[in-house]
């Protein structure tokens, strides 16, 4: 892709809304060392979002978009869920797939891009919620891992179908009660990170988004490994503060609790992934 698509023609500059000019002038394009530390100074790729006030998912979005090493050549595939409300407002190429088939769509996009642009690095990143990744889309998700597709899958785990009123999902914890699951969940939470390892992912991480720098590291590692080796998976705890009865300023606290309990930081990598990560660290890119 040409950077010229971000350059506004001089003759029409005076008619442009300021946020579009800022995207050209202040966003961090073409700099693989970009990261969350740019957030206070650079123009973000997320213009506004329509998530609830204080939603941890919005934090995750900001950190992930700030950490993509190659945003100008990154395609994001998303699925139905709270996250899908945000995608129309980010300044990247995004594809909204049907509910659950996001990894199948991403696989196709990645293969076509490799065929069409053999000399260019194009990253394909799947961003989807727990319903899309683990319930409705588990088949497509795991099959893409089995096929060793070179894509990064990021799951926003809020442990519930939040925007449809609070139904239990595969990632809901056993015993949790929600508005539409009044008896409490009868079965255990699906250990998706373990399934990802068993299915052939080369880099897997489970974490909350309480630490921006840690999210940046995980995203960069996952994308670099996916580029060269094979599928990678990031499992992020982004609690739905409304559905668990928290106030809008308590998302961070909830995630910090998660850090100590079931979402304690867990990282897995294969020897091939380790070699890539080591090399990228030496190059100063992670």
């Amino acid at each position, binding site marked *: 892709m040409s950077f*010229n698509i971000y350059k506004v*023609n001089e003759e029409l500059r005076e008619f442009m809304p300021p946020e*579009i000019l800022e995207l050209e002038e202040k966003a961090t394009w073409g700099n693989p060392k970009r990261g969350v530390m740019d957030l206070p100074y650079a123009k973000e790729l997320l213009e506004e979002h329509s998530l609830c006030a204080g939603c941890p998912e919005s934090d995750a979005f900001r950190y992930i978009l700030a950490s993509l090493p190659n945003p100008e050549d990154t395609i994001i595939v998303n699925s139905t869920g709270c996250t899908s409300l945000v995608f129309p407002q980010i300044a990247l190429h995004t594809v909204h797939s049907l509910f659950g088939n996001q990894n199948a769509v991403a696989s196709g996009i990645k293969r076509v891009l490799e065929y069409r642009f053999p000399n260019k690095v194009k990253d394909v990143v799947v961003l989807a919620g727990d319903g899309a990744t683990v319930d409705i889309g588990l088949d497509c998700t795991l099959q893409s891992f089995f096929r060793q597709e070179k894509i990064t899958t990021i799951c926003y785990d809020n442990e519930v179908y939040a925007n449809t009123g609070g139904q239990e999902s595969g990632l809901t914890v056993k015993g949790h009660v929600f508005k539409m699951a009044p008896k409490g969940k009868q079965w255990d939470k699906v250990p998706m990170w373990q399934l990802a390892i068993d299915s052939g992912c080369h880099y897997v991480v489970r974490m909350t988004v309480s630490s921006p720098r840690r999210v940046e590291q995980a995203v960069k590692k996952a994308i670099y490994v996916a580029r060269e080796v094979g599928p990678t998976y990031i499992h992020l705890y982004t609690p739905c503060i409304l559905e668990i009865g928290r106030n809008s300023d308590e998302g961070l606290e909830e995630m910090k609790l998660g850090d100590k309990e079931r979402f304690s930081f867990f990282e897995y990598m294969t020897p091939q992934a380790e070699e890539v990560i080591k090399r990228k660290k030496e190059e100063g890119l992670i």
Partner: protein
Amino acid sequence: MATLGPYHFSPYPTAVVEGVLTPPPGKGLLYNEIVDEEVAMREAAKQMLTRENPTIFVGPLIIYAWSDEAKENAKLVREMAEVLNAKIIPMVDYRPKYPKINPEVEINPNHPNLTIWHNNIKVCIFIGVHCHFANVALKIIRAETDCLTIAMCAKMGHEDAMITVRDQHPDDIRKFINIAKEVKKELGK
């Protein structure tokens, strides 16, 4: 324009339903008739020069400097606006903005009627908008407003616009500007 139905919406979702199709190469569409390109251009210029608040909605294909043709077209759009005494309002991208766009400074294909109502635009030119979003926006404008739409398309044209010319590249846009200058003179403006 389509006749309004009993609930005051257009009973026809698209012009195609009424048998209106895009013009063949070298021709233009004037309301529901296929005419010579020059005839369509002349009528487009006349409408732009005589109706209230003429506006050029310029899309991403011309806003951004992604090719030499885009750079050339941007200059021509400025010149066109001067000749037609028209305002330029950009369609900067197609993202549905939340909670809504500022209709004074931009137009969005997902609710183009907001910009048209807010600025009381009675005639507009679409140029540099990707076909699929021009199709969406023109249908909404056709059904919801009394604005006369003109589409200058680099490809096949748009049947949902009241006047459309196709295969418009810099030489064709220059031709339109020259015709507009003549019409302006004829109208004594």
